[in-house]
């Protein structure tokens, strides 16, 4: 999973409690930055922004102009956690801490740009590469990993019969249904490529298979009701190896599981069944 430490800026330009506001204004202007964390004895004790500087006399010390209740984030927090803090607290920048030590700073635009890079613009789901890195994290943390691979049946024919715009609408609907049914934090959906979707979960294989069946039914029912019938086939792999085998690289294990789930989804298509489990 992408962490705050992957995109934060460091080293951080900071201000001292006894610096003048005028000096801070000069530093902000010089480095084109809108806020500085304030340190006293290397401990984060406030943050001073360009807004604070504008409304304060330049002769004042930083301690008399800064905001004392600093919202900060741990370096190991996810980008999505950071995004929700930015939105909830209406902030523009967050100091990043490792324990009590300031190790970086992250801005809202850093987060949005990075998240944008890992979001599929059509469906709003995460990209396949992001889900792959998430799957590696699941294994790294010694959790169960199950991969579900969804493939739209006859998508080429849908595009040829109804046009690509219609096809895009179908993919959007599938993405939306996947997103709506994965808000519990157990299942993590992404668009793998074209008409293929991937979901990773820490649930066991059997549970994941049942969940996939329900999703396929929901997609079928919803799209039929909306006059755009879409049928999906799924393959399920993994969910049996709690520990990564010694000597096996995490990404190789994830690739293997994705491949097995993909092949299983092909079997589902061939056998006209909703879900097939990989052996």
């Amino acid at each position: 999973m992408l962490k705050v430490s992957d995109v934060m800026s460091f080293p951080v330009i900071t201000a001292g409690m006894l610096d003048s506001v005028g000096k801070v204004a000069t530093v902000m202007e010089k480095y084109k930055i809108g806020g500085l964390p304030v340190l006293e004895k290397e401990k984060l004790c406030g943050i001073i922004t360009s807004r604070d500087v504008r409304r304060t006399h330049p002769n004042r010390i930083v301690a008399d102009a800064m905001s004392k209740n600093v919202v900060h984030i741990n370096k190991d927090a996810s980008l999505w956690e950071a995004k929700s803090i930015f939105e909830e607290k209406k902030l523009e920048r967050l100091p990043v801490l490792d324990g009590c030590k300031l190790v970086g700073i992250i801005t809202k635009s850093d987060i949005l740009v990075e998240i944008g890079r890992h979001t599929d613009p059509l469906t709003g789901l995460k990209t396949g590469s992001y889900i792959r890195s998430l799957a590696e994290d699941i294994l790294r943390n010694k959790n169960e990993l199950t991969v579900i691979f969804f493939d739209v049946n006859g998508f080429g024919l849908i595009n040829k019969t109804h046009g690509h715009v219609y096809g895009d609408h179908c993919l959007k609907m599938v993405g939306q249904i996947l997103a709506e049914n994965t808000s519990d934090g157990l299942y993590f959906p992404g668009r793998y490529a074209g008409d293929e979707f991937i979901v990773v979960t820490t649930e066991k294989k059997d549970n994941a298979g049942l969940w996939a069946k329900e999703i396929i039914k929901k997609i079928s029912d919803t799209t039929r009701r909306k006059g755009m019938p879409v049928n999906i086939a799924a393959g399920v792999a993994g969910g049996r190896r709690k520990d990564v085998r010694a000597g096996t690289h995490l990404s190789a294990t994830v690739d293997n599981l994705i491949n097995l789930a993909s092949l299983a989804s092909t079997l589902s298509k061939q056998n006209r069944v909703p879900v097939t489990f990989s052996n």
Partner: protein
Amino acid sequence: MVLLSLKPGNYSDTGRKAQISIVLSEFEIPPIQDVLLIGRRAPIGPEAVQRMIDVLSPEQYEILRVNEGPFEAVVIRNSLSQLITREKLLSIILEEGCKVASETAVLKAQVNIVLNINVEVDL
């Protein structure tokens, strides 16, 4: 007041002269007398004043934050609060201060409290 004349050699003879006047007086410690009113946009804030009194006159003053009005904080000499309650003193000072000051001001005030006590006793 001490007037100093420039010694020969220290000035040029171009016709331009400088006159220096020096006023020597004693530095008042603490420099804030009894009460200091700190405006919200004053050149010095309560944190700076806190540090100043901590160094110059430790444990002699108390800083009270004010939520509304032109003043951000009021610094009061501790000994005054022994004669009159802090709340009463603060309300009088703020009322009078607001009449003459703006957000950018730092006002110092001298406050004299005289207690008049009349006691009747049976002869």
